[in-house]
């Protein structure tokens, strides 16, 4: 069987056994994004370290996602793609890379891959801005779009986000 429902075997593998799943304690950056189209939510955590050459890399990465099969699989695969990459390289990962590594997604599910790419962007941005680094121009532009969409999703999911933040405080 090459496909299960609409999905490739690769997608189902990630869905069944997601990589790097769960919450991270004291992350260096968090990306929280919501899917404007269908209303799903993804949180991505990164820990930044240095490689031998002294470049900053994504040393560890984890995700938590509320969403469809494609959302879970894209979350899982983007953590694979980003792990060990330098910040610069990680910023270049886009939705096409995500879709390609999954062996494709059904057209109606392509928007789920945007969610994963956005979460990574957000997590890196969070790290850079917390550490008062310069933000590359492209990253700034992507962020503007994400910010706008985030407002809309928060509107939709206000209560849940509230519950979650309260739980965090405890």
């Amino acid at each position: 069987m090459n496909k299960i429902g609409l999905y490739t075997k690769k997608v189902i593998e990630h869905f069944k056994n997601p990589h790097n799943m769960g919450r991270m304690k004291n992350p260096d950056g968090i990306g929280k994004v919501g899917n404007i189209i269908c209303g799903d939510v993804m949180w991505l955590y990164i820990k930044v370290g240095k490689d031998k050459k002294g470049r900053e890399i994504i040393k560890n990465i984890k995700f938590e996602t509320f969403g469809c099969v494609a959302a879970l699989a894209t979350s899982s695969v983007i953590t694979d793609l980003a792990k060990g990459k330098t910040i610069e390289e990680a910023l270049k990962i886009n939705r096409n890379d995500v879709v390609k590594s999954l062996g494709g997604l059904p057209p109606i599910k392509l928007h789920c891959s945007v969610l994963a790419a956005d979460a990574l962007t957000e997590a890196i941005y969070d790290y850079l801005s917390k550490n008062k680094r310069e933000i590359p121009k492209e990253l700034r532009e992507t962020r503007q779009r994400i910010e706008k969409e985030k407002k809309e999703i928060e509107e939709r999911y206000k209560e849940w986000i509230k519950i979650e933040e309260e739980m965090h405080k405890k």
Partner: protein
Amino acid sequence: MEKRIYLDYAATTPVDPKVKKAMLPYLSQKFGNTMSLHSFGQEARETLEESRKTVADLIKAKAKEIIFTSSATESNNLALKGIALANREKSRHIIISPIEHPCIMESAKFLETQGFEITRLKVDKYGLVDPGDVKKAINPIRKSSISNGARKNTILVSIMHANNEIGTIEPIEEIGKIIKESNIQHPESRIYFHTDAAQSFGKIPIDVNKMNIDLLSASSHKLYGPKGAACLFIREGVKITPILHGGGHEGGLRSSTVNVPAIVGFAEAARICEREMRREAEKLTKLRDKLIKGVLEKIDGSHLNGHPKKRLPNNANFWFEFVEGESMVIQLDLLGVASSTGSACSSAKLEPSHVLLAIGLKPQEAHGSLRLTLGRWTKESEIRYLLKVLPEVIKKLRKISPFKKHE
């Protein structure tokens, strides 16, 4: 996959072996066209009329009040558009519920673009229409603002018998009574009552006379008959305009070569339902209640959708906090269980189910919905298996969700 458990009988059902047996001769031996003059045609015609009688019997209608179509969607389109077009010069107001099947919702929307006025009633948190609302909404004598002088009276009320998603059974008899009373008071402006019985036909008793139903749609593949056969009951004397024009089949109301094998199957399926309905409903109600009780007890943050009692014997529908429906359905599928969801992610339009929103669920709550529908071959052991795996599936998905509670 060793285990395969089908809990999606509301989507479609397998053909009953007895139905299949009844159909077989009509594929290659008795294959005639009902319009042909020769003996092959004669044979097909006779079978068609017998089938019509059988299907009519199940809802206490007359044979000549049944026309065969290809699907419930077609029947519903024909009912709405057929009544609307036949009466457009005098009445243009139509009332529907907000939880109708998409084929009714969309037909109504289409009629809106053709100058008809649609009232969409409210439902309560169980999905029940209040007959009092129907009474308030019908307008037998309202003057129209349509410039050509036609009046904007109510011409049609279309309320489904039982909902396909949440299984709620509507107070059809009460609504029928209200419409009948209006028709007695205002005989010059007749209101027709249509019900989409795709989910209830063959599962719970229907009497079109007692319920004062003028038009009723039903479909074969929901009751262990083949796909491609359905019917519309049209009360004697009720005029509709056909949508399919052509050779004049089905009394000129639905041209198309008649699908005799499928209709024979439909009739056989109806016959079995007539005989088995009571026993089957009893058995399924028991299993359904066991399932509902088990799920609500075993899974934290689980909620029943639809009415606890006024619901189809075979329908259970829940929503679970912090999980998404498509993921649940695929996870269950990997474990061998077939189910369905009203989550936005699983719909072609990426919007949550209109039914779940209409009963007051928020989009994120509809996101976590799961429908399990039982049928003729559902075993108690299958429900037990489901009750074993579903809590695990939900636990796993909650673990991945950012909204989970801290354990």
